[in-house]
């Protein structure tokens, strides 16, 4: 690049002062699930047409395109369907120990949920292994996603 062109080119710093947003979110299925979590169980929604069980439940079936409303208890044991061991936190800083996160298909459910598997050697984790939910003590549960502490092996 010529000296003249270098002088003509500038880098102008810029940043967005982001405005606030107000997202409206369908929350019935999530509320149903969290009400169950307070009692130490999962509640999903079953499609009466095809039998598909969702957790948390949408109030219509993605496949059949019909309204669905049948609450159904889903097991808190399940099977590992995929996993990763993350070596750094969300900002890229190295973690002291790799964090294992699972995709789990709970018994009696078609959709999967995600969660942490603690205190394991990440090299030993495999798809197909059986896990169960470790709930927080009942007096600490508030009906939020925090009521599930983590996954642990059966």
């Amino acid at each position: 690049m010529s000296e003249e062109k270098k002088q003509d080119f500038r880098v102008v710093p810029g940043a967005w002062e982001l405005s606030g947003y107000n997202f409206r979110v369908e929350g019935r299925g999530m509320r149903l699930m969290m009400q169950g979590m307070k009692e130490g169980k999962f509640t999903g929604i079953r499609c009466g047409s095809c039998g598909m069980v969702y957790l948390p439940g949408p109030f219509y079936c993605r496949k059949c395109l019909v309204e669905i409303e049948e609450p159904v208890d889903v097991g808190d044991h399940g099977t590992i369907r995929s996993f990763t061991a993350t070596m750094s936190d969300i900002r890229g800083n190295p973690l002291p120990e790799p964090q294992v996160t699972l995709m789990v298909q709970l018994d009696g459910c078609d959709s999967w949920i995600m969660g942490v598997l603690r205190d394991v050697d990440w090299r030993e984790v495999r798809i197909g292994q059986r896990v169960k939910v470790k709930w927080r003590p009942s007096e600490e549960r508030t009906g939020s996603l925090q009521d599930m502490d983590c996954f642990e092996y059966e």
Partner: protein
Amino acid sequence: MRNVAIVGVGYCPVFVSKRNDVSIPEMISEAIHNAYLNCGLTPENVDAFTFGNMHTFEGVNMPHLWSIDHLTALGKPIMRIATGGTTGMSAFHCAYYHVASGLYDVVMTITFEKHSEGDAQVGLAGIITPEIMTVLSLGIDLTGGSGMGGLGGGSAGGISFQATSYLHHSGAGIEHIDAQAALERRNAAKNPYAHLKDPECTAEKIAQTPLVSYPIRYGHICPTTDGATVCILASEDKAAKIADKAAWIHAVANCTTDATTGNLIEGLITDPAEQMSCQLAAKRAYERAGIEDPRKEIDLVEIYNGFAHQTLMFLEKLGLCEVGEAHKMLERGETEIDGRLPVNASGGVVSTNSIGTSALNRVTECALQIMGKAEGGHQVPKKVRKALAHGWGGLMQYNTVTILGDAPLKR
């Protein structure tokens, strides 16, 4: 429906991390200029334009409108498309519809991304901001590792679950992802328009790069690239007059399924490695192109692979081999530049990722291979009669397919 040909391809001169010597409109202009030069057309010859790049990646919106004079599109029809990683191919498909329908004879597709001026993570985060805000408000812990938290942890998170599932179902190992990444870095070294080049790269060298999120290593991941790509399409009667060599569009198809990893709120998390939409898009494309046995009829493939395992995974999803066979093809050397089925002779997205261009580059690379015009030593030695270009993106579930041939399709 009319036959449509690719008659001109233009790249900006280099694809690198930072083009500090040009602005966004200047970088786009370079590719447009080269496209005109390569086919002998001038702006008066182009009837309409389609434009592709991702929203907010550069912190700007409507770049197709404020750079309109640089696009040589003043006073002409133009529309912009953004579909994630597939953006470039979606804009190309749109141009194809323009010409195939008979509305326009010559249409230019313009794509770019100039990552160095912005922050792609902001644009990506914007895709699922309502979801993230919702689960955060309901007690999920994205960083501390408790409860239902950890949506994969970090940018490579979601893709890591896909890679783990792919390895499980295919029987491949992390060493195969290493070898695939190494092959593409070596191919990129022969492509003047590639970014990460390493002519001596080996699987062992990739294996020494740190794990980011098992099984994804640093060496498996695409760079962020500044670049622009332009493609000119023409109707059959015009194409013969314009170009001595052309690549003919035999089929386009696209498909999406549920946002598998993008919708925790409504219970839609399933296998990110299933990619049913890729299988459906490929099936439709083969039908439209009159291809009965893609494994025999497709001569060359360009696969969208932001992460190296995706080359192998999509080779299977596209029906170009059996499930569990892609990594064996790699072991046998069949996917190398001089192999039976060259895959990503360009070095793929894993070597060069200016996102708006990336899916279009899959198409233009197939076109140049058919024309025999691939530069710098990555032209494959075999005769390419039919080639398949694949795009992937959206919320991990959107797939696009384009099939090109060396002659017009008999309809």
